[in-house]
């Protein structure tokens, strides 16, 4: 990811995650992780990958991984790691807290998440050469796996949840990590408890990051006023239509690269045009043969064009 600027935290309990999220500069990416249990370095481990907050127009997207020894699968099931979409927010918070505080869990399960800020998402998607959300996601997942491996986790099997076509993603991962047994599947979080654990970590972080968002722009808005961030949420819709700034558009909680945000700005803020968004389109630069037929006024005088020196520098006469 081009934007490497990020802050880091090693934590466990939920309270610390919240404290960290509300103190950190929320336009940067952040990295939060648990400590790594010794058994995860000694025994071969399964590692699950999932994301949260891909679709919303507000707040960060969070990528998460969780890992534990292959033998410890039962502990995940005991914790209640099942399809995270079936779980209520409250339930997820409890499981996350137990995962970090219960002796039987924190001795064998480790996790880490990357919080990808809405400004980083927008800036990447709106580059001159587009860096798509899919690429951002994959690079984040790869980064998290690499990081865990670097810190000594004995990874044997990797399970990844995906929304897109699994084959291409699986081929890419197998290429980067040839020694791991890699499985990319749709709805993996309901099939594999370890993916479900990763999903819970990502979702809990995403929910808290959005709830605890402080606006560097000085807006005093609570979570209730902007809602879940999903484009269909009536609170989110109202927030977008009521909080547009004429010049700057929105605070950086909003993903400007979402068409929802763009449409909502229409009529609520000044139109803005960036210079040469499409400067890949090269115009023919040499002299054209048709120039011999034009360039004269009706009386036959030759029209004088401004010298290249001025044209290249976009210099012209000022008229009042």
């Amino acid at each position, binding site marked *: 990811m081009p934007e490497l600027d990020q802050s880091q935290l090693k934590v466990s309990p939920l309270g610390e995650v919240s404290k960290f999220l509300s103190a950190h500069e929320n336009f940067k990416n952040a990295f939060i992780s648990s400590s790594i249990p010794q058994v995860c370095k000694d025994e071969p481990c399964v590692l699950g990958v999932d994301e949260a907050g891909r679709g919303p127009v507000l707040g960060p997207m969070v990528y998460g991984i969780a890992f534990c020894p292959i033998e410890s699968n039962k502990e995940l099931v005991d914790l209640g790691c099942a399809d995270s979409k079936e779980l209520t927010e409250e339930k997820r918070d409890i499981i996350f807290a137990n995962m970090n505080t219960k002796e039987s869990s924190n001795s064998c399960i480790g996790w880490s998440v990357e919080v990808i800020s809405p400004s980083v998402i*927008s800036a990447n998607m709106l*580059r001159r050469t587009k860096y798509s959300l899919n690429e951002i996601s994959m690079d984040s997942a790869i980064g998290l796996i690499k990081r865990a491996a670097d810190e000594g986790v004995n990874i044997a099997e990797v399970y990844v949840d995906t929304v897109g076509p699994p084959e291409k993603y699986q081929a890419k991962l197998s290429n980067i990590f040839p020694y791991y047994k890699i499985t990319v599947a749709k709805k993996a979080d309901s099939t594999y408890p370890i993916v479900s654990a990763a999903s819970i970590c990502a979702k809990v972080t995403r929910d808290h990051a959005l709830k605890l968002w402080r606006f560097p722009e000085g807006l005093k808005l609570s979570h209730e006023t902007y809602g879940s961030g999903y484009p269909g949420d009536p609170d989110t819709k109202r927030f977008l239509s009521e909080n547009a700034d*004429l010049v700057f558009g929105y605070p*950086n909680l909003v993903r400007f690269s979402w068409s929802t*945000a763009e449409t909502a700005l229409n009529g609520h803020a000044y139109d803005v045009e960036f210079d040469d968004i499409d400067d890949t389109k090269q115009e023919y630069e040499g002299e054209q043969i048709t120039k011999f037929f034009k360039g004269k006024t009706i009386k036959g005088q030759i029209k004088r064009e401004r010298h290249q020196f001025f044209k290249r520098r*976009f*210099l012209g006469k000022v008229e009042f």
Partner: protein
Amino acid sequence: MSINLELSQSQLNDPKTNDIKLHYMPASIQGDGAANVDLFFNNYTAEENGVMRNTFRGHSLEGCKFTVPNTHKGLIFQETDTPLDENTNRVFKLAGSFDSFNYWNYDKAPSKADAFRQMWDVVSVAEAMSADISMDDIEKEMERRKKKTEDSKEKSEP
């Protein structure tokens, strides 16, 4: 029709008008009015290895400080009312002055290749164009041309 620019030395020296923080943006904002620059923009400016970074409407910007050549001064004029009658004189009042501003590029590090940078060549061209010419300079130039024509005659004659 003529245009009057109103400014005084005391205004130019007044620190209140002399310290305007400007941003040269790589986008045209189709509107005119106050902007909450401090909270929505300056707040986010980060600097690393001499390159400043920020975003505007989600687009990433890279920028640097640009200092106005010390032979020049940046001035901002404002016209309060544009007269409807074309023959009336127009009056522009000094609204502020500046010696530097932040120059931003859209997703591209600022460099000498930017048209904006090259625009400043005009300053030296204009200086050469409008510099005073003394009698001495004219004689020198005449001498130079005479020599040039003699040289070319010598080359073609033998």
